[in-house]
């Protein structure tokens, strides 16, 4: 890690997170939203790994939590896509702005 300053990696992950967040907020397709969420999770994962590498914590900690995050990401995708399929089957759409039952 002596090669690259920590700040640069953090800026990188920040940008990655921002791109993911932008996708999450603007994509209409629910699958697109899920994909964008994956980007945000990966940004977080990079941070975890970097901090584990540079701080005095035991080096496994960050990686273990990254593994947990990946597992949760898998869960998100699995459940999210199941919801997408159910929604598509019942309402013939997977566009988030067309599913607004909880409306005034």
């Amino acid at each position, binding site marked *: 890690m002596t090669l690259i300053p920590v700040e640069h990696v953090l800026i990188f992950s920040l940008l990655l997170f921002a*791109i993911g967040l932008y996708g999450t907020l603007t994509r209409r397709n629910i699958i697109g939203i899920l994909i964008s969420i994956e980007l945000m999770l990966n940004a977080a994962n990079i941070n975890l790994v970097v901090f584990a590498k540079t701080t005095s914590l035991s080096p496994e900690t960050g990686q273990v939590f990254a593994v947990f995050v990946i597992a949760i990401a898998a869960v998100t995708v*699995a459940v999210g896509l199941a919801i997408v399929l159910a929604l598509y089957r019942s309402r013939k759409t997977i566009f988030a702005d067309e599913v607004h039952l909880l409306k005034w």
Partner: protein
Amino acid sequence: MEILTLAAKIGAYALMTGVLLFALGVVALRNLFHSALCLAAALIGIAGLYLFFRADFLAAVQILLYVGAVMTVIIFAIMLTEHLSGKTTIQHNRQSLPAFLGIAALVTVIAKVILQTPWPVTQKALGAHTSVEGIGTALMTVYVFPFEVISVVLIAALIGAVIIAKRENPS
């Protein structure tokens, strides 16, 4: 050494740039299938970064789980709903501008904080090499409880996904 270090440095920055470009592709491309392919590329790039950070196990997990499993499921879902992502369909909603402004503000603020903060670097940690054995030991000793909780969550998600995706009429 110098050249190798420089090459590694350049490689790392190139990798990060590539990942960011693919990420932009994920968000911006109209065709969802292309987005998914970009995501896959971005994820592989991130796996490369993990290698650069000497997190070999995590890189392997990233490739196996994300690129192997999650991407497969996503592409599968995209295939099932393909005809909705036609060329004429608008793929972005109307809050792009406020979202962009808000995110720009966020990036400005956080970047400022990052650049102002002095990040301590422990030399000993830098040199440490994390083995798969170490991670396995950590998972089975210190982090055994979160590990089991994750197992339960996975099982619950598995069952939940099956039940949600199941057809309504059992006949």
